[in-house]
């Protein structure tokens, strides 16, 4: 009935085919050239095709919580101010911004004749309405407290007043926002997604079924957003900056979680820019001279490290934490995905304003790590394996994540100083419920993605004791240091930039030394684009800054290499329909 030989043969055939198929690598496709590579004049027209691993949660400005969603919202809704390509806050809907009252108020003069996507004219009352809608107590906004320095915020948020007193309409095109205390983070926060201006049809209070309508360079047509699958934005013909945007439309494939799939589509011209490449593809694109001018590493947007709960032993002992910070070999971690990872040794990552190039931060030093363990009272002898901390340390992480790999390198490093780390993997919601609550998680990977480019955004939520909460802490290490709190508070209201910078640098040194976190790496996306995508540039804050991008190719010149089978089938079925 069955011969052992038949089975043998089948298995061998299977194994061989797997190896053979896998062994031959297709060569990297050539880039599709631009039609007029030497001509710098922008051309109008064309659709830009993008893809994203992530999904867009919402198109309602106050609800956005991640950078990708916020970046897309920024294309649809204009705001009073925006970030320019250097990370500075510049007027956008406002034609000028004046700081008055010694920094306690800001006056915004609006451009005149700006039209919403539905045709209505944008005036100061729309600005007030949008701000009140965003900060209303019935709106589930994750970023409302960024604006609590606005006068009357507390009363409005607790429903004591029907309107936000600190936002005043002074004229048809004049808005005054008063703060109850000086706040150097107010303008950057204003440039974020939450307070961008919504159409009158959005109403005054939040409702889940909003149709996206603003005054930004792009608009959403009905049916343009297929949830979880694609999003298409179309040019706003009446955008207030004449001539922009050049593109007819831009579309995203959402939830494109397979890097191989994205690379494949990019090589066939189905998507024009790719930023989620696998390690191997990244190396191939980096090494191919034909692609040299069309690839780039995006700027750093955040940083990652290991947070140690200072309330749970052994991390209540500062020497143990110092040992951990010195025991982790960051070069090894970077080698796990060297094309995208950069080592980070302090809380404010390289490339951020406030980054201090003179201070080294935490350093890999095995001898020093052993010395710290000895000082902590848990000496470890690497030769015999005796000593160290007697109990296993539980490290909570979520999957899927890069930390599933980097944690195993960290695990090996810490074993060498006598700390046995046990990985406890759960899903993201479970991880949040553990790490945000007091006393639940001993050690976990944490990171911070910038909300706006400012050192306070990295230092305050993570290391200020005001950030500690029983159920919802953002200070994951539960770290308390009165000197740090004091310096951060002073820096917030400090108006001299040099003095402010010095305060933050001071804080950084203390934090690196006391090591509530072991800082490890920053992830940078590697982006490749086709040559016919012109003027594509990174942005320190936003992903997909495409308002001034233009396409330079002849119509249908890009050979979409559709398979003959597919074409015949589509044609046949199209006719039949």
């Amino acid at each position, binding site marked *: 009935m069955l011969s052992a030989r038949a089975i043998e043969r089948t298995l061998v055939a299977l194994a061989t085919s797997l190896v053979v*198929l896998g062994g031959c690598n297709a060569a990297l496709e050539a880039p599709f050239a631009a039609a007029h590579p030497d001509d710098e004049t922008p051309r109008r027209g064309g659709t830009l095709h993008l893809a994203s691993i992530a999904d867009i949660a919402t198109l309602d400005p106050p609800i956005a919580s991640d950078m990708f969603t916020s970046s897309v919202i920024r294309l649809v809704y204009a705001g009073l101010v925006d970030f320019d390509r250097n990370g500075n806050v510049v007027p956008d809907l406002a034609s000028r911004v004046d700081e008055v009252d010694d920094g306690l108020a800001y006056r915004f003069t609006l451009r005149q004749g700006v039209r919403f996507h539905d045709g209505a004219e944008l005036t100061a009352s729309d600005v007030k309405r949008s701000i009140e809608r965003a900060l209303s107590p019935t709106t589930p906004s994750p970023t409302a407290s960024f604006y609590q320095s606005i006068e009357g915020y507390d009363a409005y948020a607790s429903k004591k007043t029907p309107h936000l007193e600190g936002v005043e309409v002074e004229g048809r095109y004049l808005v005054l926002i008063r703060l109850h205390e000086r706040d150097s983070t107010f303008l950057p926060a204003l440039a974020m997604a939450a307070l961008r201006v919504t159409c009158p049809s959005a109403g005054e209070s939040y409702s889940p079924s909003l149709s996206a309508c603003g005054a930004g360079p792009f608009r959403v047509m009905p049916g343009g957003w297929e949830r979880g699958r694609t999003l298409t934005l179309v040019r706003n013909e009446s955008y207030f900056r004449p001539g922009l945007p050049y593109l007819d439309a831009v579309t995203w494939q959402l939830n494109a979680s397979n890097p191989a799939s994205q690379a494949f589509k990019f090589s066939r011209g189905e998507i024009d820019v790719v930023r989620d490449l696998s390690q191997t593809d990244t190396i191939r694109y980096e090494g191919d001279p034909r692609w040299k001018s069309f690839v780039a590493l995006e700027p750093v947007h955040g940083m990652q490290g290991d947070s140690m709960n200072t309330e749970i032993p052994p991390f209540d002992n500062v020497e143990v934490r110092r040992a951990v910070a010195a025991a982790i070999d960051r070069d*090894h971690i970077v080698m*796990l995905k060297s094309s995208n990872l950069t080592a980070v040794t302090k809380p404010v990552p390289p490339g951020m304003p406030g980054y201090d190039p003179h201070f080294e931060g935490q350093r890999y030093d095995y001898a020093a790590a052993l010395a710290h363990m000895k000082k902590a009272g848990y000496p470890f002898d690497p030769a015999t394996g005796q000593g160290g901390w007697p109990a296993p340390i539980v490290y909570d992480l979520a999957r899927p994540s890069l930390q599933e790999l980097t944690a195993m390198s960290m695990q*090996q490093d810490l074993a060498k100083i006598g700390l046995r780390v046990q990985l406890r993997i759960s899903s993201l919601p479970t991880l949040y419920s553990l790490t945000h609550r007091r006393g639940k998680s001993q050690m976990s990977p944490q990171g911070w993605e910038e909300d706006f480019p400012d050192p306070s955004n990295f230092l305050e939520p993570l290391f200020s004791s005001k950030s500690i909460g029983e159920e919802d802490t953002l200070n994951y290490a539960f770290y308390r240091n009165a000197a740090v709190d004091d310096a951060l508070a002073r820096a917030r209201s400090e108006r001299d930039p040099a003095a402010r910078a010095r305060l933050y640098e001071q804080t950084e040194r203390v934090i690196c030394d006391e090591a509530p976190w072991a800082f490890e790496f920053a992830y940078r996306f590697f982006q490749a684009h086709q040559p016919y995508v012109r003027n594509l540039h990174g942005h320190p804050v936003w992903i997909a800054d495409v308002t001034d991008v233009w396409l330079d190719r002849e119509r249908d010149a890009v050979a979409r290499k559709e398979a003959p089978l597919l074409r015949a089938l589509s044609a046949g079925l199209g006719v039949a329909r």
Partner: protein
Amino acid sequence: MTSRWRGSRAARAGLSIVVALAVFATIGPLVAPHDAFTSDFTNGVSPLHTPIGPSRHFWLGADRIYRDEFARLAVGARLSLAIGMLATLLATAIGATVGVVSGWFEGSEGTRIPWSIGIGSLGAVVLALAGHGGWAVLAIAIGLAVRVTGELARIEPLKRGPRVNVDMLLMRMVDVGLAFPFLLLVMAISAALDHTTATTVVLVLGATGWLGTARVLRAKTMQVRSLDFVLAARALGRSTPGILLRHVLPNVSGVLAIAATISVAQMILAESILGYLGVGIAPPAPTWGRMLYEGQDYYLAGPWLVAAPATAIIAAVLGFHLLGEGLKDALGARD
């Protein structure tokens, strides 16, 4: 005669595969040049900062964090075989019990639960949970009242209700088990326990894998109970547990053995799926499913990371399937 000879060929093929795996699992980690848990950042890294492929030092190449794939495969073999067999033990024990009991009591009289009582109790439970204790008691009271009224006034519909016996209840449990979202259960269990270990995986697989065995044994028991010696034992007044243990069980053992062997194959498969989905044993334990999970977004460049565990899984599962085939032919059992 012919079928036995043929059967032994399949059994032999299966057995040789299984034995080869066992040998690999036992001596593999001892023979391997590297430890399965230590990264080698010097020898395991290619000049391009990627894991090296099969070579002199790393027989099956290096994995994503530069550990020895061969050593990991061998340790994984230990884990997979152990989990497969232990989970099968658990599942077969549960499945056999449920199946035999169910098959024995199939078609028996059972008791009748009137609709009124059933709905009344259900309503009471929901209301009690909602915190309305008083209403809950009222619901039960109404149910009882309806039943009693039916009895006294001889109104048939009020007395009616479905007939339930052990078989029906157990088979409904099987239905619930089959309709239940497997993933949710696995995640719930792994979240409730601090650490996903081999034990938790064995428990989960065992607790969810008995359904098929139960059905098969139920069918077989229904066949066996009408055999002569069983009828004789019943006529002689032997106790039910006694009959089940001494007469039924030995006669269903053939089917049980086949089901168990196939079950090992399915357990290994299920464990690899769990590992692949990331809900299996916590890393750095190198189960084959986990190795697939870690290697999959790298497979176009490093196919050995997928080919090695894939071949191992297929071989192991095939081996046990063949063994089961062989047993089936040898015992002459049908379906």
